[in-house]
């Protein structure tokens, strides 16, 4: 299991070298979106309308941060559970997005979309919101402010620690890890 440092936007060359279990330190701009924002973004794609940011090579972080304290760019910001975005993610990947950050397992359709469109599903440590929030150096709401914590934010990260869960070859770290440690009765 290797460690990589990658800067967004990601290319197919970036993503195809990664294997399930690798550690990646992400740098650059990433975009935040949860359930409500995904629903709106995918509706825009289906209607052929312009999105609030460029999807090409983008990394989407499934997060709804706490409000920032005065002087901080953002509050605590760990990942939310990803399966709720399963119905939207294949469309996002098909239209140029290359990475997702969340926690928990994904559907077969998402795993297949990762293979088809050179996408990666990264896992970040759920519940480590204080630690992860410190790696976010700037944050700006760029769409849907009425959604509060679920608004789309453009954030800048430095050495943001994630693990490759689903790679471009169809491997799944959760499945592999569990098979290794399961005790059958």
């Amino acid at each position, binding site marked *: 299991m290797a460690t990589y440092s990658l800067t967004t936007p990601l290319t197919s060359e970036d993503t195809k070298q990664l294997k399930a279990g690798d550690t990646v330190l992400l740098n650059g701009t990433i975009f935040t979106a949860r359930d409500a924002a995904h629903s709106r973004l995918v509706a825009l794609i289906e209607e052929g309308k312009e999105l609030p940011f460029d999807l090409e090579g983008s990394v989407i972080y499934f997060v709804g941060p706490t409000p920032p304290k005065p002087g901080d760019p953002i*509050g605590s910001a760990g990942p939310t559970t990803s399966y709720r975005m399963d119905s939207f993610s294949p469309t996002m990947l098909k239209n140029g997005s290359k990475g997702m950050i969340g926690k*928990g397992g994904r559907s077969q359709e998402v795993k297949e979309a990762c293979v088809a469109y050179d996408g990666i599903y990264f896992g970040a440590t759920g519940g480590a919101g204080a630690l992860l929030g410190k790696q976010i150096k700037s944050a700006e709401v760029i769409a849907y402010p009425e959604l509060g914590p*679920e608004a789309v934010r453009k954030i800048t990260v430095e050495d943001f620690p994630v693990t490759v869960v689903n790679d471009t070859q169809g491997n799944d770290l959760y499945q592999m*890890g569990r098979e290794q*440690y399961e005790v059958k009765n």
Partner: protein
Amino acid sequence: MREIEFDVVVKAVKDMIMHCGTDLPQDTYDALEKAMEEEKSPVSKEVIRQLLENATIAKNEKRPLCQDTGLAVFFVNVGEEVRINGGLLRDAINKGTEQGYTEGFLRASTCEPFSRLNLKDSVGYNLPAIIHFDIVKGDKIDIEYAAKGGGSENVSRARVFPPAAGKDGIVAYVKEVISDAGGNPCPPITVGVGIGGTFEKAVISSKHALFRDLETENADPEMAELEARMLTEINNLGIGAMGMGGTKTALAVHIEANPCHIASLPVSVNVQCHSSRHTHITI
């Protein structure tokens, strides 16, 4: 009849909420430290190490432990010989909740069920709190509080079994719920199991079981034995910290059992993530 000022309750609730948002309770911290030592998977060990580091950062810098600062859940035991001066107890708890979430910069995660809109902005609205009242002897008010996150709540389930299902049926069910949940509820988890009562009694008991300190044993030896059996079965699933694979899927199983109808065996499984933020105060 003893009188307690409305604002005393507001302040006590606010303080509990702000403290729990940033300071992981000692029993949870200790249980995670023990789990890190015992975990066999290096990947899961590293995840738990990050969680302990996160707890230290949160405490020292007063940052929320997790961005999901939960819905505020309370179990309140009200003594028969006490009354609130200046308002309703429920209103005092809600006011303290709003102040705690606002002043602590905690995320308001409450929204309307279909519009999904938060009625205010992210700051200052996390109402109504979920409050379970009971009346007890004495002239004190005991308030138990937990910040309950959504990811672990989403995998929780309840079912009414026929009595013949027995212990084996319940153990198999608990195992099935946790197996299906995988890494989604942020393991290592605590599992609250409510057994018996009516349908809703089992559910509320499974929630209350999560408020028990992690190092404490069940007072009923039969239930303590059943908890140990369930814990072994759950850890044999191999899910590990954050689902990365490992030997420590759960820190503890807590059971609350009640008498039930001769026709029924209700069971509820309520899951708590590793960030078990709970505390209580007696006024």
